[in-house]
């Protein structure tokens, strides 16, 4: 929690930033170091889905049809694949999105609070045809949904 407050302050880039800037300038804190503690390095650097799920505590996630993952079945280009996740599971507080076949599968992890609906739209890179997995956390339990997106060859290829 302590770390979280610090990070939010820095993110806002105003107000009480002064003290922290001084620390950074003095070399006591490198910006990356400040956020690395908060950014879940273990989860984002895990090389497979199982590793990611373990890092976020979701290895026993169960399927639930109230967790809706909306993806195109086929993408014209893997560089931008629109993905939407909507959780209808009561008390959902977090959503994570994974691209199984990417070298680093965890794409994003969101915590929702203060009236935010547990849903998000993002655009992801897919190196190849892959399963997309959405994980939701509600009341301390984890739920999972997955769908495949087929990445096609596009353009003349010259």
């Amino acid at each position, binding site marked *: 929690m302590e770390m979280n407050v610090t990070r939010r302050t820095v993110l806002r880039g105003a107000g009480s930033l002064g003290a922290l800037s001084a620390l950074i300038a003095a070399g006591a804190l490198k910006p990356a170091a400040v956020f690395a503690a908060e950014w879940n390095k273990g989860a984002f650097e895990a090389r497979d889905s199982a590793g990611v799920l373990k890092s976020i505590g979701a290895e026993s996630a169960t399927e639930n049809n109230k967790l809706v993952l909306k993806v195109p079945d086929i993408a014209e280009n893997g560089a931008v694949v629109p993905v939407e996740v909507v959780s209808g599971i009561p008390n959902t507080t977090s959503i994570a999105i994974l691209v199984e076949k990417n070298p680093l599968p965890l794409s994003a992890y969101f915590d929702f609070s203060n009236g935010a609906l547990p849903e998000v739209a993002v655009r992801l890179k897919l190196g190849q045809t892959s399963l997309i997995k959405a994980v939701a956390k509600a009341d301390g339990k984890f739920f999972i949904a997955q769908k495949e997106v087929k990445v*096609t*060859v*596009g353009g*003349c*290829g*010259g």
Partner: protein
Amino acid sequence: MKKINTPLLAISMSIAAVLAAGCATQQSHSMHQTSPEMIQKAFAAMKRDFHARAIATMDRLDTDKVQDVCNATGDVPPEEMAAKLEAEQTATLKLPADGNYMGDWKAGEKIAQSGRGMTWRDKKMEPEKNGGNCYNCHQISPQEVSYGTIGPSLLGFGKIRGNTAETQKYAYSKIYNSKAFNACSTMPRFGHVGALNEKQIKDLVALLVDPASPVNK
């Protein structure tokens, strides 16, 4: 070229129109004919405004007879003229000396997938590195859903025609020089211009004709 037999042209155009109406795969370009004067102006403009880059040299704007006739007739040459052109192009066919037309369909699939080669981004003429651009225009293997529709579907090519020496020779010849069969075909003359070599064309023939190829499954 400037003196086109009008009645003949009209007839061939109406034939083409009938075919176009009945068949989505006919190369039925919109009936368009550029005047000799405008063709001349277009080439003069390109020769003034374009420049050589890497292997894409200015002599690529020097047209051959096929291009001249197709340009002058809006891709619908009078039948006699088309037949003459096709005969001339047939005479340029270089078929494999060993009489064998079939290569490896798996290698053929890779060539069919690739659209590489012959552009100003390519430093050298290296047919062995070139692709056939096939999927850009044709449906081929059922597994590849990303295929173009400028050319006809080739799904089941060998199955429909049979794996005969004649089918193999036809496929080889068509890839080598499409204009031997249809004077103003949209398809490039891959062998004729040296974009693909003998081995590559054989591999493509195998992709189309070999009973083991997914095309014929």
